[in-house]
């Protein structure tokens, strides 16, 4: 369908696939031999497409010190790369200072290969099947013309946001707080399509499928396929979207069309959406089972052996707040007695009741001024003015409390192997004088 891999990228895929096959068939002993001889293939060009040989650099660049900053067309160069294959980049808290996160500053999370950009977005097809009375096959063009579009500003947050706070480290990309952003999404409530299709009484759960290829190159293997309880799918804020901040949804963010399942782990918000199958039981696709997007029912010893039977699906994301100005590491002139803070806070399916800030490691707290969300699932911006007693080194901590009274902890707790639910307080350090 829309994923047409062509040109040099296809060469790259072929190369990856053949190298993989080679590895798979010959084992490590053979690799060892090759290492001594021809490998790395990509540097001397033996056995690889000519295009690569011509383009191959003389040597791999030296590893960068400090965070690796993103270089990607249309994206802010302040984003921090967590991985390049798959491409994952987070937004430092200080770049989340806009009320609406601009596309250039929005974090990037991929699980598989990035598809080619759709040449004819309106011809992109979405299928809704499974436990429905009438299967729907609809193009994006038809979706736009036949259904009533809505625009809502809503947080999208990676399920692993805050993972870096776990000790010992949990498996996966080491997100700090930057796997989140809040954009204006335009699309159609999924519920409108599900009503049109007619849910059977057996409809319990969704299963989402997309056009991005698994990293192994296996076209028969979904990169990731998650789903949600039917109640969440029917929430009027769960949208099939094609525009972000009023612009066509960029390919890197799942364009031309993706799901937005606000408040829940971002992986439920399938990018490059092609199909939603309604199931009569909990979905069991890649990303649904064992420890994926799951937390422990009975708290486990950090770093210990986990039992899959003790795990349940992470649904709503936990409460979180970030200081978006000043930036961590900011310096102020000697004699500065007052600091103006700005920040954002959100709480998955809930709202934020209050945000407090501290400059004395939590010994005392000051209430921030908190805005109301624009609509449900919007984040809530906050401001505070801090008085500083002296010059010197200060840490500023921010702590949000959700509408049910749950506060952010000092450390990521309830350790789990893949590090979900980490919402330790954000802290920045500033130097005065």
């Amino acid at each position, binding site marked *: 369908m829309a994923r047409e891999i062509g040109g040099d990228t296809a060469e790259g895929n072929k190369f990856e696939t053949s190298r993989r096959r080679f*590895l798979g068939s010959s084992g490590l002993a053979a690799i060892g031999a090759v290492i001594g001889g021809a490998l*790395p293939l990509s540097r001397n060009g033996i056995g690889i497409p000519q295009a*690569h040989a011509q383009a191959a650099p003389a040597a791999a660049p030296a590893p960068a010190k400090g965070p690796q900053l993103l270089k990607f067309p249309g994206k802010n160069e302040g984003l921090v790369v*967590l*991985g*390049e294959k798959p491409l994952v980049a987070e937004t430092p808290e200080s770049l989340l200072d806009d009320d609406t996160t601009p596309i250039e500053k929005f974090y990037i999370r991929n699980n598989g290969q990035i598809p080619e950009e759709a040449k004819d977005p309106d011809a992109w097809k979405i299928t809704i099947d499974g436990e429905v009375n009438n299967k729907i096959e609809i193009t994006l063009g038809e979706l736009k013309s036949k259904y009533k579009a809505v625009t809502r500003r809503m947080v999208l947050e990676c399920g692993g946001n805050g993972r870096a706070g776990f000790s010992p480290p949990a498996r996966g990309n080491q997100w700090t707080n930057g796997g989140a952003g809040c954009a204006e999404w335009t699309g159609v409530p999924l519920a409108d399509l599900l009503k049109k299709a007619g849910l059977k009484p057996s409809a319990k759960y969704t299963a989402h499928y997309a056009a991005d290829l698994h990293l192994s190159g*296996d076209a028969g293997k979904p990169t990731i396929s998650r789903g949600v309880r039917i109640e969440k799918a029917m929430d009027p804020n769960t949208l099939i979207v094609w525009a972000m901040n009023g612009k066509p949804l960029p390919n890197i963010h799942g364009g031309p069309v993706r799901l937005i399942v606000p408040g829940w782990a971002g992986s439920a918000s399938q990018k490059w959406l092609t199909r939603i199958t309604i199931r009569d039981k909990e979905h069991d696709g890649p990303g649904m089972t064992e420890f994926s997007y799951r937390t422990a029912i009975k708290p486990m010893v950090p770093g210990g052996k986990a039992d899959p039977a003790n795990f349940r699906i992470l649904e709503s994301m936990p409460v979180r707040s970030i200081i978006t100005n000043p930036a961590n590491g900011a310096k102020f002139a000697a004699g500065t007695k007052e600091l103006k803070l700005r920040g954002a806070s959100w709480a998955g399916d809930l709202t934020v009741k209050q945000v407090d800030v501290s400059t004395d490691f939590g010994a005392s707290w000051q209430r921030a001024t908190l805005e109301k969300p624009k609509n449900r699932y919007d984040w809530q911006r906050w401001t505070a003015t801090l008085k500083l007693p002296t010059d010197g080194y200060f840490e500023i901590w921010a702590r949000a409390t959700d509408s049910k009274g749950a506060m952010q902890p000092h450390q990521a707790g309830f350790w789990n192997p893949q590090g979900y639910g980490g919402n330790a307080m954000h802290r920045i*350090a500033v130097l005065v004088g």
Partner: protein
Amino acid sequence: MMVRLAWLAVAGMLWIAPAMAQTTFTPREESPEEFSAGAGRDETFYACTACHGFRLVAQQGMTRAQWEDSINLMIRRHNMPPLDDKDREKILTYLETAYPPRAPAGRGGWVNPFAK
């Protein structure tokens, strides 16, 4: 034509010419030498990078048992070719030595920007 040539020149530095520069992304090519030295590094590097960047591995800090869980997960769920006992031993020994759980505990990935 000039544009295309210019792209090729740029692409030369990027290793692969992006077919659609707006949206494709070519990972920087990694080499084993960039990562923690140790016996088994090359074998580990090539076993993992058949699919994904080694940076994903190097981000982690885990015990041998957790590394073993990770490898089992890759084999079970992500098409990684099974390892024989000798290779498994070599790779696990490298990973537990080069990427153990990080100390100090509880700092949460937060780094004091003023620390020297």
